[in-house]
């Protein structure tokens, strides 16, 4: 494959957006978790929730900053590398992104300042409102960006200007609530909550294994396994819903996901296989035949295989096929962790180190794995179009030179490698070291009237419990 400006721009977009999505996926869930903790603290007055809040807000601050800076990049990518796409679709999805800034970004960014630095300036209730504003902001933000992306998957409510070839909206309601939007929004929100729960579980498990767990550790473990056990089944349902919509509107994507090469009334479920795009078959296929009537009960008539599409209209099969299986696999493991954790909780063994805890620690990465591979399925599965069936990726590219894109891709890779490494180390240090630092309030603080400070919410991350260096 020749590395031209097109393929480099695609790589760059894939890289910067995959990097970016890590942080919103985590902060959407974490903002909700923080709002729950602070709400529970105000309601029950139990110290443990305040300690949870003060602990996780430090990680939130780091993750949010990384999400913001990598997000600014995204708002310029459309123009720098995909300017023809921007020119053609601006009148349709531009307003959606505009609304995202107006209704979500300012809300999040502004109240984050109060959340992090406002302890001494506002009362507890107002501080709680600030936390909720940030949490709601993240949700609204996801709403608009999922809507815009879903319109690219299942465009609706538009027409094309005969003179310029530009898209314009005929009905904005149909644009926003395009066919794939509801299922994909639910799917992404659940993914964010699940990702965060897996991280919180991993951090708790680490503390249990290292024998420095405390009351907040025990709470966060229970909250996390409960969330996983409840949300993962819902997520499987949401994922299936999303698949049914794709089946109706993007059959080529579904054929690639399933590894179906031939159109047929009844299709198998392929568990394993290596799609061979040249010979249009799967190598070393392991399949359960005859499952499609159960998995797609609403499908009428035959189920399209990749042979129903011209070669130039097919997405890259191998990537979509395998990304989907990795996503599903990661989800299944998280479901198992959630159920297993609940069983241990019920049998009062969740606070004793065991195999579960050792597995839950690397399990903290599974949410991110599932989110990224899931987005790969969605975006690569949409190829070779940017606006499905309407605008080809190769016709969306900006007039940029290969050299320029190569430069920017290298710079982004270096910059992101540095900040990702540093950020992950700093977050992991805070997450794993436990709650000792926040435990006792200095006496002078206890005499203050309600509504006064909870104390500084930060301290250096490089010292571990009791001031010693953390175990690496």
């Amino acid at each position, binding site marked *: 494959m020749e590395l031209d400006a097109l393929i480099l721009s695609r790589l760059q977009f894939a890289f910067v957006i995959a990097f970016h999505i890590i942080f919103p996926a985590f902060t959407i869930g974490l903002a909700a978790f923080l709002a729950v903790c602070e709400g529970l603290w105000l309601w029950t007055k139990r110290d443990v929730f305040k300690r949870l809040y003060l602990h996780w807000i430090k990680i939130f601050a780091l993750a949010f900053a990384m999400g913001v800076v990598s997000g600014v990049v995204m*708002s310029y990518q459309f*123009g*720098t590398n995909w300017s*023809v796409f921007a020119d053609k679709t*601006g009148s349709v999805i531009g307003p959606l992104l505009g609304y995202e800034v*107006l209704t979500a970004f300012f809300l999040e960014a502004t109240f984050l300042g109060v959340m992090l630095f406002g302890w001494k300036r506002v009362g507890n209730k107002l501080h709680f409102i600030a936390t909720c504003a940030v949490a709601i902001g993240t949700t609204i933000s996801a709403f608009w960006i999922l809507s815009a992306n879903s319109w690219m998957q299942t465009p609706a409510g538009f027409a094309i200007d005969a003179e310029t070839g530009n898209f314009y909206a005929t009905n904005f309601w149909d644009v926003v609530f395009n066919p794939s939007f509801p299922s994909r929004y639910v799917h992404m929100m659940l993914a964010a909550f699940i990702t965060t729960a897996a991280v919180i579980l991993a951090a708790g498990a680490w503390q249990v294994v290292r024998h420095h767990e405390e009351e907040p550790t025990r709470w966060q473990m229970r909250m996390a396994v409960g969330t996983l056990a409840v949300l993962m089944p819902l997520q499987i349902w949401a994922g299936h819903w999303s698949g049914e919509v794709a089946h109706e509107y993007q059959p080529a994507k579904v054929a690639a996901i399933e590894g179906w090469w031939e159109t047929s009334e009844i299709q198998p479920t392929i568990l394993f296989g290596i799609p061979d795009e040249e010979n249009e078959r799967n190598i070393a296929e392991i399949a359960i035949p005859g499952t499609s009537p159960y998995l797609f009960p609403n499908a009428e008539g035959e189920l399209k295989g990749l042979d129903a599409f011209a070669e130039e209209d097919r997405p890259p099969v191998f990537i979509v096929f395998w990304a989907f299986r990795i996503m599903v696999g990661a989800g299944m493991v998280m479901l198992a962790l959630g159920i297993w954790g609940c069983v241990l909780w019920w049998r009062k063994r969740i606070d004793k180190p065991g195999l579960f805890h050792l597995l839950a620690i690397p399990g903290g990465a599974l949410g991110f794995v599932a989110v990224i591979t899931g987005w790969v399925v969605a975006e690569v599965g949409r190829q070779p179009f940017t606006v499905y069936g309407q605008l080809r990726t190769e016709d969306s590219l*900006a007039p940029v030179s290969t050299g320029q894109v190569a430069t920017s891709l290298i710079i982004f890779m270096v910059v992101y490698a540095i900040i990702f490494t540093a950020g992950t180390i700093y977050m992991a240090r805070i997450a794993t070291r436990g709650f000792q630092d926040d435990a006792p309030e200095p006496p002078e603080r206890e005499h203050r009237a309600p509504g006064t400070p909870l104390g500084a919410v930060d301290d250096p991350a490089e010292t571990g419990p009791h001031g010693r260096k953390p175990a690496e």
Partner: protein
Amino acid sequence: MELDLPLIWGLLIATAVMLYVLLDGMDLGIGILTGFAKSDDERNLMTATIEPVWDGNETWLILGGGGLFAAFPLAYAILMPAFYLPVLLMLAALIFRGVAFEFRHKAVRRPTKLFWNGAFFYGSLTAALAQGLILGGFIQGVTVEGRSFAGGALDWLTPFSVLVAVSVAIGYVLLGACWLVLKTEGEVQRRARNRGKIALVGVAVCFAAVSLATLSIDPRVTERWGFSMTEIEFGKLLPLSPIPLIGLVLTALVWRDLTGKVSAPDWRPYVLSAGIFLSGYLGLAVSLFPNIVPFEVDIWQAAARDNALMLMFVGAAVMLPVILIYTGYVYSLFWGKVDPDEAYHD
């Protein structure tokens, strides 16, 4: 009555960019000033003055970029590829300085701490310079063919754009220094005044140079102002002359405030400096209006469909006042001198 939506959106985006310059420009200026801090304490105090608000300030840049995409897709599609490299430079710099806000407090080992302090300073400086290069490249105009950019990758790099880049960076330092005058006391404030004075001299020289250079960029600009090195048309110049004159008067007033010869309230240097920026901005608007891609595409040619503009106009009419109210509320919440003990870190 028919609303001229492209005009309204032109004004809205111009306002967003202006607010970005006044707010995040001040942030970036403080970032540059941290490079000259005498101690870690001073540096921490400087960053503490902006930590609660920088994120909101930077959001105006997203509104500028996102708004341009939404309201003027054609302009966005032409300008972004034209400024590919300086935009990249700006983004990389903003990434480094953005995370450095948090990371410099997480690092306690000396090399990592120095690294993130450096990232904050160089990131702020580079972002300011890159924005100046983009502005300079924008003012001098870009090559367009059909509906896309048709120039070279380095078209933006000229002596003029370098001059504008230096001016923007110095201007941001002035805003940052004035913000420190407002938010700090004692020795730190005294040093901020001194640095502010140096920056003010730089601003006076640079803004004058940029103004004169802009007049010779394109005959249409000269025509509009009725002023060139060899000829003056008073009929055109006089009605516009208050814009640069007010800038000059404000410069003198900021100087008076910063030297401390008169007892000025601490907020005044910042507000008056913002006025200097505003006069420069208005001067630019007069020179370039109604072009959104100088001197090729105007706001009506670049505008999105009316229904898209209308939908966003409704949203902006409702949301912008709300945003301004809560932004104002958060600024007022953190009003007053920054308390070293209250700094979120340490």
